């Protein structure tokens, strides 16, 4: 079954999964937008502008960091090739654009993030499905009976672990009672996602390592978790004082 799925969505078709996740996620976010005091149209515009900034910013920053290559073939900047892209640069551009749009439209910071949480949760599911299809973010070798054959070894199905965690997170967030102060829905999603990463990164076979084998992703997830706990507590305290 996994092999059929991998054949069906083999790269570059795995991008379909991300686009589908974006569409489904935005639809779900729209459905619950009013509950968080957000307007559907503004939510759509925010996502659209952030997406444009992600694509354009990622390409532009890639070109800037590889100037000599583009000097010899300047038209490559318009190439449809998705590999000419700097994902972290794209993310920075998208965040900046979203912040500017939010300020201009006077959007509530935490309310908007809460409204967008279903989109983030579905995007995480789409990302893990895309990883499964492409065979990236693969697991370390294992002798456990549920190991999958990938890259000439029997490995932990790390993509499936992460997919299952993302589905559970989405389910929990979708069905929980919504009487918490603004921001806590998003922060709960961030805490659960960081917690899942901290736990599941241990089964990955492609981790970036530092300091004698510590996994960078686990350190980043731990720091995220600490920040999220601190901010959640601050929000709760502020609500209590008010």
């Amino acid at each position, binding site marked *: 079954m996994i092999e059929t799925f991998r054949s069906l969505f083999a790269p570059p078709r795995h991008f379909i999964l991300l686009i589908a996740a974006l569409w489904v996620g935005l639809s779900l976010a729209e459905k619950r937008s009013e509950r968080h005091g957000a307007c559907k149209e503004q939510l759509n515009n925010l996502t659209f502008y952030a997406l444009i900034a992600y694509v354009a910013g990622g390409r532009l920053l890639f070109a800037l960091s590889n100037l000599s*290559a583009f000097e010899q073939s300047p038209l490559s900047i318009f190439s449809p090739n998705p590999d000419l892209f700097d994902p972290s640069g794209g993310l920075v551009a998208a965040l900046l654009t979203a912040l500017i749009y939010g300020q201009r439209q006077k959007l509530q910071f935490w309310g908007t993030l809460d409204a967008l949480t279903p989109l983030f949760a579905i995007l995480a599911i789409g990302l893990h499905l895309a990883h499964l299809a492409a065979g990236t973010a693969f697991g370390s070798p294992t002798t456990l009976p549920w190991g999958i054959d990938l890259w000439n070894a029997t490995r932990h199905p790390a993509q499936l672990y992460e997919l299952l965690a993302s589905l559970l997170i989405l389910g929990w967030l979708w069905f929980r009672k919504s009487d918490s102060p603004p921001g806590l829905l998003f922060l709960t999603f961030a805490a659960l996602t960081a917690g899942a990463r901290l736990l599941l*990164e241990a089964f990955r076979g492609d981790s970036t390592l530092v300091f004698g*084998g510590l996994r960078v992703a686990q350190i980043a997830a731990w720091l995220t978790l600490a920040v999220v706990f601190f901010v959640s507590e601050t929000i709760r305290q502020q609500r209590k004082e008010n």
Partner: protein
Amino acid sequence: MNSTQRRITYSLILLLGLAWTYISADKTGSSTAGQIPAPQRGFLAPDFELKTLRGETLKLSNLRGQAVLLNLWATWCPPCRAEMPAIEKVYKDYKDQGFVVLAVNMTYQDTFANIAPFVDEYGLTFPILLDETGMVGPLYQLRSLPSSFFIDRDGIIREVVIGGPMAEALLRTRVEEILK
């Protein structure tokens, strides 16, 4: 849960997280550095030996010490045709620095008579290898044409580009990385 209970819970979770990070550290190094041959970034490029269009025999592992672009293609594939001029241009620019292009034609899915005219039409000067038995396709888990594997001087795959055509700038950035 009151504020004190929450803070204790948060601290416990963070302590457990620290312990798990330490326990699950990969002290033997990344598992992909185990020199397992597989067509994925970070793995050793699977070895093969094929005949060229000129009748010579070429083995991938004999090219250790050189940076290799392994391009899987066919004459009937439009993106393969579209990226060939850029590959030729980049090959000419970097070959003196130890860059080699191995263009493996999927002969078992192609028409042999079309290959030589194709090579002449685009003025290709790098070796054209013929996969007549369908050995390299499955070895590199070929799912789309063209597929390109950028292999460094140690024989490790550093980048995989599935589909095309590759832009000239992409080729240059990837080639400069594997030449380092």
